[in-house]
């Protein structure tokens, strides 16, 4: 950033005879350029939707940078996004203004020591910072006001920091700085196949079956938990084992591809988690196949993509993270998620800055960040050449595009038909998996929640489930019901989020506004229960933070009837709109076979006719106590995917109603399991004040712990590898539904018309921060 950039815009406004007119018009016509950079975009949308209506201030969201004069940088700017931010800023005509919202845009916030983030203030001159994680719409609008004031000439420091002396505890002793409570085992024992005695009859038959099928190809087959089996093989046998499992056993998709770096034993553990959509008794079973290979600079290993297409993108991801070359996977020449010059960050010798719990002037608040060198590179050269040779037209969509979200799509079109779509994700990759290895188990709850702030409770639940599973914690009945209620609330919220975006993608802004109004009610309920709109971190191991009061329950049951009424209006204007149906019917069809092949998850899989819902397959919380049905469709097109979800939401509303009714009858009482609390029994109704005492030294038993939950957009898989000694995870793997659905968007778009790409994209409810993590 050049020095004179900082004051250039104000200089333009302050000079000239017409300066008052310039200032007045700029002040009331701040058009933010639609540049969604991270998850704060959800709250930005709320600020400009009908709840808060930013247009009151004359700020009209404009899709195109050339016509806007205001950027609202929404949170994290990753190394990849830095380039886009700079280009967008340069594209805008002077005078222009920049607001940065969200904590991560200032000093990184919760991702402060991530290897992939940059500071926006080093890329573009920033006029105003709005703190919060995420910010609230009110504060965003206040930020707009602040820029207006600045244009008016009232450029004051709005927040004054002052130093305060902490009150002494009365003992007269100087307070000491607490040391970092983290504990790393010096030579951790990393084993994925720790046996566990579980009451699982099918397990032993399954193991016997596997043994006879695999012959001598395996080293060991272990039951690690209920519904979890680990198969250890030699590296050269892995492909054969995979072939047998996919061919004979009906294990048809990969749930996760994982690599664990064990430097002190000079090995990588390569792991594939597979499961089945086609056989109903195998549905809940997750089989993990793993092998160990030598730890070299660039180890090579045969890819399993030819057997399981669904492993494709995850293998590319592991290639980025660990530098492992999967032979046979076509994406091994370039980085997929990360910026091109990034090293292999998830290897253990790549260290992140260590956090200190007390402000110390000698410790820099931010680690040094080198800006990306390739600020101008538009797209892989070879793609251009290929397209030119084959008489195709290439369109680069995003990351700054009204219809792109935070990732880039490279469309290759012939006439009006899409030939190929190349996704370029990673624009919001905030390196959660690496950060999680450096934080206490309990600190990772808010971290993983940031993967998807439009569906926060399911994100919470997914992570907390792993811990509960590993520690075998039984959650109190009331807490289970509340969790179910929260998860359904969050599912409904996420559906409305996606409907709004879908409506926008088809050009229907009223549809967007209507559902956003309903979402506002959900957030209101969330605030009443948890105190936060989008990031409550309310679900904790062993229960929930505090009990939910009766008036909130009343509010939620009122909410259900209010939603039904408003949904009717939404149906009339959007869902049954003839134009909408014409746009979506028969577009982007994925057959059942294709859906299974590409490993789709959640409602998008069910729309293609696969009856797979984890809430039924492997019931958790109180789902088995309610009366509800899984909705499946067989059309597999955009309309089917959308309507499937719509029906599902009606089921969710019914679950919500049932849960609230049950909770009203239930006596108030413990919401946190006593097994976790130990000596802090006083906290069983409200954990406030006891958090770190009760949870600070949580250590998971040795082994790998995997849990799947049905989040709003599909299967959320969390897998933690613990060495049984450290109070931080050794390796934490999260596979989000959107990441698995990415392939579905690509495949469904092929052969469709250009404009259909956005309906397909919208119908998949793709939330880039969740996919990129």
């Amino acid at each position, binding site marked *: 950033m050049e020095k004179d950039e900082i004051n250039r815009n104000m200089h333009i406004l302050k000079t000239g005879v017409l300066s008052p007119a310039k200032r007045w018009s700029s002040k009331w016509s701040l058009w933010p350029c639609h540049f969604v950079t991270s998850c704060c975009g959800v709250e930005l949308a709320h600020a400009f939707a009908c709840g808060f209506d930013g247009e009151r201030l*004359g700020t009209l969201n404009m899709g195109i940078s050339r*016509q806007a004069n205001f950027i609202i940088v929404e949170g994290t700017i990753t190394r990849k996004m830095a380039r886009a931010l700079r280009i967008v800023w340069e594209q805008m005509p002077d005078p222009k203004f920049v607001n940065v919202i969200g904590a991560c845009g200032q000093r990184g916030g919760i991702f402060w020591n991530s290897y992939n983030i940059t500071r926006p203030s080093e890329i573009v001159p920033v006029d105003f910072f709005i703190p919060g994680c995420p910010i609230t719409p009110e504060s965003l609008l206040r930020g707009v006001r602040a820029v207006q004031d600045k244009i008016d000439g009232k450029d004051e420091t709005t927040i004054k920091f002052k130093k305060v002396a902490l009150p002494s505890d009365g003992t007269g002793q100087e307070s000491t700085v607490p040391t970092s409570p983290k504990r790393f085992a010096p030579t951790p024992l990393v084993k994925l196949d720790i046996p566990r005695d579980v009451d699982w009859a099918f397990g032993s038959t399954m193991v016997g079956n596997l043994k006879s099928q695999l012959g001598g190809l395996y080293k060991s087959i272990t039951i690690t938990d209920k519904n979890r089996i680990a198969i250890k093989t030699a590296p050269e046998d892995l492909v054969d084992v995979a072939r047998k499992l996919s061919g004979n056993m009906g294990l048809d998709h990969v749930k996760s591809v994982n690599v664990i770096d064990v430097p002190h034993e000079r090995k990588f553990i390569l792991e594939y988690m597979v499961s089945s959509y086609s056989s109903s008794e195998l549905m809940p079973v997750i089989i993990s196949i793993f092998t160990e290979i030598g730890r070299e600079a660039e180890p090579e290993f045969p890819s399993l993509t030819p057997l399981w297409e669904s492993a494709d993108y995850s293998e590319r991801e592991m290639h980025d993270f660990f530098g492992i070359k999967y032979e046979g996977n076509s994406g091994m020449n370039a980085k997929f998620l990360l910026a091109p010059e990034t090293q292999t960050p998830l290897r253990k010798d790549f260290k992140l800055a260590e956090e200190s719990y007390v402000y110390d002037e000698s410790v820099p608040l931010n680690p040094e960040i080198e800006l990306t060198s390739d600020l101008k590179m538009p797209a892989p050269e070879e793609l251009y050449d290929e397209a030119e040779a084959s008489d195709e037209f290439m369109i680069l969509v995003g990351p700054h595009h009204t219809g792109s979200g935070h990732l880039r799509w490279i469309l290759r079109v012939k006439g009006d038909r899409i030939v190929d779509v190349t996704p370029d994700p990673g624009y919001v990759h905030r390196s959660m998996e690496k950060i999680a290895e450096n934080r206490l188990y309990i600190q990772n709850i808010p971290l993983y929640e940031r993967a998807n702030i439009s569906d926060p409770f399911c994100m919470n639940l997914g992570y907390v489930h792993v811990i509960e599973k590993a520690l075998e914690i039984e959650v109190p009945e009331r807490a289970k019901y509340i969790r179910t209620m929260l998860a359904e609330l969050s599912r409904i919220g996420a559906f409305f989020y996606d409907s709004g975006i879908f409506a926008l993608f088809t050009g229907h802004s009223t549809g967007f506004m209507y559902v956003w109004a309903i979402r506002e009610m959900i957030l209101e309920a969330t605030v009443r229960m948890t105190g936060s709109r989008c990031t409550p971190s309310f679900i904790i191991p062993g229960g929930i933070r505090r009990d939910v009061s009766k008036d909130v329950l009343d509010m939620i049951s009122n909410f259900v009837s209010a939603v039904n009424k408003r949904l009717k209006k939404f149906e009339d204007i959007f869902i049954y*709109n003839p134009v909408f149906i014409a746009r979506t019917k028969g577009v982007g069809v994925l057959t059942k076979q294709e859906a299974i092949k590409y490993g789709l998850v959640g409602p998008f899989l069910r729309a293609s006719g696969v009856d797979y819902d984890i809430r039924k397959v492997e019931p958790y919380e109180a789902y088995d106590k309610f009366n509800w049905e899984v909705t499946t469709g067989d059309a597999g097109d955009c309309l089917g995917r959308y309507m499937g979800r719509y029906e599902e939401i009606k089921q969710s509303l019914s679950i919500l109603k049932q849960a609230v009714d049950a909770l009203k009858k239930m006596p108030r009482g413990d919401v946190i399991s006593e097994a976790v609390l130990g000596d802090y029994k006083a906290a069983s109704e409200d954990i406030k004040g006891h958090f770190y005492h009760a949870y600070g030294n949580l250590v998971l038993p040795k082994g790998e712990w995997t849990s799947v939950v049905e989040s709003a957009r599909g299967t959320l898989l969390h897998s933690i590898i613990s060495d049984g000694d450290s109070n931080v995870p050794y390796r934490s793997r999260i596979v989000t539904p959107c990441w698995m659905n990415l392939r579905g968007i690509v495949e469904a778009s092929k052969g469709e018309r250009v404009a259909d790409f956005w309906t397909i994209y919208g119908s998949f409810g793709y939330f880039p921060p969740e996919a990129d993590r």
Partner: protein
Amino acid sequence: MEQVINELLETIMSNQLNVPVLQPILDSVSQLPMVGLIVSFILWKPVFALLICPGLSTVGILLLFFPWIERKLCARIQWRVGPREIVPWLGGLIQLIADTLRFLFQEVIVHRDAHRPYFLQFPFLSFLAALLPLLFLNAGNVMAIETPYAIQALLALVCLFPFFILGLGWASNSRFAFIGTVREAFMYFAYEVSFIIAVLAMIILFGTSNPMLMADKPWGIILNPIAAFTFFVGAAMATSRMPFEIPEADQEVAAGPHVEYSGIAFGLIYVMCYEKAYILAGLMTVLFLGGGSGPVIIAGLGELNGVMWFLIKTVIVLTTLFVLRTIYPRYRLDQGLNIGWGVMISLSLIALALSIVLVQGGVI
């Protein structure tokens, strides 16, 4: 020389706008030497049409306030408030003035790949081209150029618009502009034919193409509703309104031909689309809604009655056209073409047949 001037004066004075309410003021003003002449010049009907209504002043005022009406109305439909804080007690009425000024003071970027001369010329040229049809539009019995071929001339000038949009897109030399331009070209052919046939149907029906004479006839929308519908949908296609906002699809091709324009150049394009809509709405008023005729005639206003009713009807048509965007999503290009070449052509031909039947049957 004196004779020429006298003749000219006579022409001017013989064709004055007749407004009884203003007559006393005009009488007193006309005593003044120069001012009286200027006032009578302005009130000379062709000049009045050109400068006041339906000409430049109306366009200017409409451009400044109509987008506000649109934004407020859409906001109400969408459970919002719309622009407000700029003057809260007027509901943000002057929002568009701020926007226009802001565009005026902003940098105009000409990017490296653009064809510089055309890139800068086309916004201005297209703005002018969008004004030309006003010469043949009448508000009541005020009209700039009175000719029996006014509707045809107007239609010919209206059909010029898309060329300028093509020019904009071509000069931008950007991928999205290119796709948007091609879409515009496709859509142009799709709506144009049926649109013209619908107008022809009305000309046949009325037996004249002089808009002044159409006002005395019954409303076109009652005589031939099919033509009215075809015309309205055609107008929505021509002005890229929802559900046919295909060339400028924001989420797909990032505003298409306009994607590279900034500052006042974009401001001109932005108002051009409103101008276009205004002219088509005016034409719709003339052809289908009885032009300047109205149920209530205020005696004092004299010939301004026609002007008033014309404006009221035009604004209603405009509003309907613009509010469509809150009701419909967007069709795909091929669906738009299908509608244009299929349904719309059939409807326009039916409308034509209906007109011929009505005329032959002696209904009109």
